[in-house]
């Protein structure tokens, strides 16, 4: 019995505080980010941990108007939701077919899609640039939207194939017995049944593109088309000429982070499980 007691002793004593410290560090960074966004640049360095004496809402006003975070937010919202909807519209039927209509092609095509998960964006970006340039789709939000949807295919098809495969077959079979065509069965039975998986796939897609940088950086040029991460980078760049405006920068950072944080507080469990569960099963 002595041994049994001995184990939880030291490991609990040191373990839990360590885990909490690790977590508290992230919380502290988030809190400090919020505080900083409401302070003047002088106060940020003079008293990094104190509450702002008078909240500098002006930081947000500056970021939103002078650096046009408002426009960037609008661009990003349209782009990201458009991407999620189109991605689901294209990949849900494919995933359904791959998991439920058995032909000799299924496992091959599923593996073929999974292959894309291992191809880094840097590998495909050059030919894509040449291609989009030929089509006059460089520096165009439509062009970026097409690229986002296309590059979402591997993960979303892969994710939804697994999800459709886990759904019960009975309802579908009953619908078929009642004389519903396969097409109708998909739209009226399977899609509503798969709602939770589809919503999860959409959320993951939105989160992934909300802060996407590489494609935006390469394919967008003019300032009025900038997405949020490009607006942040632009702000950083301008600070080198116009002097440090850390308060404004952090107001911009909060503009990017707070919607994600709200979404995470609301749907956290779904996001965590969506991003990790496939690995365990």
């Amino acid at each position, binding site marked *: 019995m002595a041994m049994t007691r001995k*184990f939880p002793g030291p490991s609990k004593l040191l373990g839990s505080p360590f885990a909490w410290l690790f977590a508290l560090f992230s919380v502290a960074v988030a809190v400090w980010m919020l505080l900083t966004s409401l302070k003047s640049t002088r106060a940020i360095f003079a008293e990094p941990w104190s509450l702002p004496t008078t909240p500098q809402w002006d930081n947000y006003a500056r970021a939103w108007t002078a650096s046009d975070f408002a426009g960037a937010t609008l661009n990003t919202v349209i782009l990201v939701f458009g991407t999620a909807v189109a991605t689901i519209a294209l990949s849900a*039927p494919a995933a359904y077919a791959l998991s439920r209509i058995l032909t000799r092609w299924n496992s091959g*095509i599923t593996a073929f899609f999974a292959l894309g998960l291992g191809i880094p964006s840097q590998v495909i*970006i050059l030919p894509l640039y040449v291609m989009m340039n030929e089509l006059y789709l460089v520096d165009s939000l439509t062009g970026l939207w097409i690229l986002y949807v296309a590059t979402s295919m591997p993960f979303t098809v892969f994710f939804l194939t697994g999800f459709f495969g886990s759904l019960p077959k009975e309802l579908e079979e009953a619908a078929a017995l009642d004389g519903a065509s396969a097409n109708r069965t998909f739209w009226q039975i399977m899609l509503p049944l798969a709602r939770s998986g589809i919503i999860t796939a959409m959320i993951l897609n939105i989160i992934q593109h909300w802060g996407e940088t590489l494609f935006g950086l390469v394919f967008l040029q003019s300032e009025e088309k900038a997405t949020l991460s490009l607006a942040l980078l632009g702000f950083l760049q301008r600070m080198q000429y116009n002097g440090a405006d850390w308060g404004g920068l952090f107001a911009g950072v909060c503009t990017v982070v707070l919607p994600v944080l709200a979404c995470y507080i609301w749907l956290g469990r779904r996001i965590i499980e969506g991003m990790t569960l496939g690995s365990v099963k």
Partner: protein
Amino acid sequence: MTATAVRETEPAQRQPAAPAAQSSPLARGRKRLFWPFIAPALVLYVVFYILPTLATAWISLNKWAGAGPMEFAGLDNYRRLLLDPVFQGSFANTLTILFAVGGATFALSFLLTMILRDMAGRKAVRAIIFFPNIISGIVLSILWGFLFQAEGVVNQALRAFGMDDPPNWLGTENLFSVIMIGLVWVQTGFFTTILMAAVDRIPKDLYEVCDLEGANAWQRFRHVTLPLMWDVVGVCAVLWSISAIKIFEFIYAFAGAAGQLPPTKVWNTALYAYAEAFASGVPKYGSAAATGMVMLALVGVLVVLLRRLFRRDTVQF
């Protein structure tokens, strides 16, 4: 495939609509939908993913500025990469991220998994440490860099503890270490979450047996936990390799301190590929493409090696 086939025939005995009933009109109706359902996604994937990959393989064998004539160069681009000290440094950094950051992340994730296994508040801790994973790399990089500013929070804390002359964290000699620590901070939550889910599946009575036998913490981990989650560790290793090679934003945004791109000392191959094509005077598509192919080859080699390393009969429980 055989496993699926066996499962499919079972309901077929009850209902004719099951796919195994090849001849039924319903099954044929479904089969007709296969290609129309798959085609849009497949075409998009092939046109925007597979063909560009093949095109990059071809570009990597040419000298090309992105427009105008291509000049076939054979393996010249690869040879030039091998001789370019900046590429050597970038490649070394990619490997350092893969193994050093990966090693630290996995060690920390295992440790946290074991601590959180039976800790009060584990769900809250998990939710918090996972959060940085869904934040854009640019934002994380800005936050992380700002913590380490000369007058930043880290140095103020160090001064408070009596260190009069804290290091210049964002100087070229320290920047890569700062980046690596930041990557560990961001990634640990993700792998801890996956490992926790794997550990949760291990039956509790196995640990009770350990306690009865008087096994210590390390023995429990080595002989019970690790073998029973081995396959998941393998998946994590593959996921890490792929995502580690792709890391770009977190390093790129450190340029904020110094100009268009961060100092070459902290580049990895992803940054090198970007810089060659889009940020140098004359675009060097050939060597950028060759860098891309090196990254792809690295992913391929690692995935094959890891699958071999982790391939063994999973313990049934």
